[in-house]
């Protein structure tokens, strides 16, 4: 049984690991390697363990550059993180927000403990009981200081989160804590 994203540990989110992507745009400055800047920022708080299979590896997570798109006056970075604990995602977002005003975080939670009915209720979506319960749906979570969209896939027992974050937003670990309290089966 895979340990990652085991949603049974509802009150111990620090023990779970996540895989996802982080996207942000930054000013296009010549001779500045944005990924190295990001890695240096992370290394201030986490022990850097070197590169493994193309990933920059830290104590509580790994990150790699998936894609880099050069625009006129800015560059857009697409990063992938994996085996990441919430604390690592917090730090990664913090490091990205040193370079950008906003970043987009995407990751998934998978497990039989997800209560899809509760998710609908939290978001204010009315379940009229008529439709197919296993049908996919989208909701926006009413969280202060963060725009969080959730795509729900009941047949795959999976939620995908897409969060648009800025410096004033809740941290990813806080978003997770709120989500877990509300939509995991007791």
């Amino acid at each position: 049984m895979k340990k990652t994203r085991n949603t049974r540990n509802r009150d111990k989110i620090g023990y779970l690991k996540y895989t996802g992507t982080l996207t942000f745009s930054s000013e296009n400055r010549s001779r500045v390697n944005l990924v190295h800047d990001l890695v240096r920022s992370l290394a201030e708080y986490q022990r850097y363990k070197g590169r493994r299979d193309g990933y920059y590896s830290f104590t509580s997570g790994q990150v790699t550059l998936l894609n880099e798109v050069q625009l006129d006056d800015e560059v857009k970075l697409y990063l992938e993180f994996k085996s990441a604990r919430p604390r690592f995602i917090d730090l990664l977002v913090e490091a990205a927000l040193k370079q950008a005003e906003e970043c987009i975080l995407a990751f998934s939670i998978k497990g039989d403990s997800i209560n899809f009915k509760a998710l609908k209720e939290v978001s204010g979506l009315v379940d009229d009981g008529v439709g197919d319960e296993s049908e996919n749906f989208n909701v926006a979570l009413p969280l202060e200081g963060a725009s969080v969209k959730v795509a729900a896939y009941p047949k795959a027992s999976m939620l995908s989160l897409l969060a648009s974050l800025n410096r004033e937003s809740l941290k990813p670990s806080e978003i997770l804590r709120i989500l877990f309290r509300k939509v995991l089966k007791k």
Partner: protein
Amino acid sequence: MMEREEYKRLYTFGIDYGTSDVKFGPITCGEVPQITENRGYLPDKESIMYKAFEVPRDIVVGRDLPLYLQSSEDLSSRLIYPMRNGVIEKDDEKAWRIVEELSRYALNIFKPADEAFKGFHLVASLSSISPRYMYERLFQIYERIAEEDGTIRAATIIPQPLAVAIAHKATTCVVVESGHGNTQVCPISRYPIRNAIVAVNRGGGDANALTSEILKDLGYGDLARQESFVRAVKEHIGLIPVDLDKAVEAAKEDSKRFNIRFKVPGTRISIELGENAWTRFLIGEYIFNPNHEVFQSYFTRGMSKPKDVRIGNTVFRGMIDFGEAILESVERCPIELQPHLYRQILLSGGNFSWRQVEELKEYATDAPTKIRLLLKGWDITNVKASMAEAPQYSVWRGCVIYGYAVPEDYEWNWERMEGWKKFLE
């Protein structure tokens, strides 16, 4: 233009048509995709129960399939595994219909309820020995799904070993992908070197067959016919020997040390090897090298020997050992490239996931070490073999990473066999 690129990144979807399982899902699945068995059931629609209670379905696939199974006698003709050898014959219509149904099933599980959704950018992966007509048929299927379900905006197909290499960011390597039905050895130098691919007609299914024979010898003949049970036993007891002769000798001398008991979860069934604990090593060895004389007794008693078979234009070698297969493949590449290839051998696929027992490490080893030992036997040193991270899923991972990176406006090119084939605007 930028918007389309963003759209593609949001809706990249990978699907790996393995010989035994189909692994699928969007990039948001993270490291573990959704999995379903690569099989379909064609129910007897004349059954009265069907007529009375259900809207007849032509083909059943996915998680609910066992609920539709009818008599055991019908299973061989109605329960079809379309890709047992990684290749589907051009005119095997039943198999193609099952592939279509499986593809629809996979895409619909993750079809977003978002109005902005206009279909996935689908990256499919096929065996490296798949002939061109398989690509053509698959694109035809995708075109139909795009029209009818709206779940595919564009699609591309890549060979499985390339997907493994992409997942590991390896541009020069040999990928050995071993699944249930067969094994592909494929050198990669930026792109698969097609004329150097060696296909082996041996995979996890063969280790199951040998495990079944071992179970019969132990007196569990009735259980040995149930494939899922045999597979569970294999995964629990099988070991890869460092040296088969020495391991067997040691296990015969001290069977208690090597003994193992396996209890089937949720049942009263348990098996114990006892004095036959030495047979644990046969299971692992058979995958890597079935030429040892000890296997002869099983062949003599009726276990079928992995045969050389021709499928499409490819000959799948039955009895070649994995060391020789890698050697043969690498030696078809330019001499200057060969040392670089030996230095990065990536082992991928569920057939390389074997248990390791710390107390028996003198006799039992892991798959990369076994490959190094086999190559050493051919006087090839300076070899670096490693397991793909999550070997069962690395093809799928490579698919989604590839889809994420290939520009949206790069159109499919039949000569280069790459790019996006677009179906919906």
